[in-house]
C-alpha cells in the first residue's frame, strides 16, 4: 500500500510517497506522477517515507525521467530513504 501527498509551488510539483513500492502499486504511482510530468512542471519525488522499493519502483523512476525529457522538464528525487538508496545504488550498476 502506498500513500501520496502532492504539493504545488509555482513551477514544481512535489509528490510525497509513503509506503512500499512494488509491482502491485507501481501503476498507482504512475497514475499520480505522469499527469504532473505531462503538465510540463518540474516534478520532485520525495522518497523519505518509502521503506521498500523493488525493480518496479525503479521502472517508474526511469519511465518518469524518460517522459520528463520528452516534455522538456525534469524529475528529481528528494530525501531518498536509506533502503531506497541501496536499491538505487544497485540499479545504477545496471542502468
Amino acid at each position: 500500500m502506498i500513500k501520496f501527498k502532492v504539493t504545488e509551488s509555482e513551477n514544481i510539483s512535489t509528490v510525497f510517497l509513503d509506503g512500499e513500492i512494488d509491482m502491485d502499486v507501481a501503476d498507482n504511482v504512475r497514475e499520480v506522477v505522469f499527469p504532473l510530468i505531462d503538465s510540463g512542471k518540474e516534478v520532485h519525488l520525495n522518497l523519505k517515507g518509502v521503506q521498500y522499493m523493488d525493480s518496479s519502483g525503479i521502472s517508474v523512476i526511469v519511465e518518469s525521467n524518460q517522459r520528463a525529457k520528452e516534455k522538456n522538464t525534469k524529475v528529481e528525487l528528494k530525501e531518498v530513504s536509506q533502503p531506497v538508496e541501496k536499491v538505487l545504488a544497485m540499479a545504477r550498476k545496471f542502468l
Partner: protein
Amino acid sequence: MNTEVADTTNLSEKKDFLVNSSSLKDVRSFSREVFEKFKINEELREELVLAIAEAAQNIVKHAYKDYPDTQDRMAVRISCTDKELEISFFDKGKPVEKSKVKHRAIDDVKPGGLGTFFIQEIMDSIKFKEGDKPWINNLVLTKKL
C-alpha cells in the same frame, strides 16, 4: 507458516501464496519474519527480501503472464544451515525457458530485466529445476553465510 525442521543448525520454513501481485507484500512479510527468526543480520536480510520478492514477482509476471486471474498458489521455502541459506520457489505456471532468463544489455535504457539482475547481484547461485509433482517450476537460490 509451516516449520519443517527447527533446530539451531538446520532450519526450514515454507509458506504458500496466491499467485497475484497483491501477494508480494505477504511474501516480504513472511521472509522478514523467517530471517529474523533465523537471526540473519539486518543488512543482509533486506537484500534477501528484495531477491525473494523479485523472484516471486517473476512468477506472477512471467510464469502466469497469460493467467492474471489464476487461483493457483506458489510456495516459498527458506532453509538455513550455519553455512548457507537456500531459498526455493515452487509454481505451476508456464515452464521456465532457461535461455530467456537473463538481464538485458547494459546500454538498453529500458528497466526490464532489472529484477533478475538484482537476484544475480544478491545471491551466489540461481538454479532452475523441474518441480516435483504437483509443481512445474522449482527455482533455487543460494547464499553463503
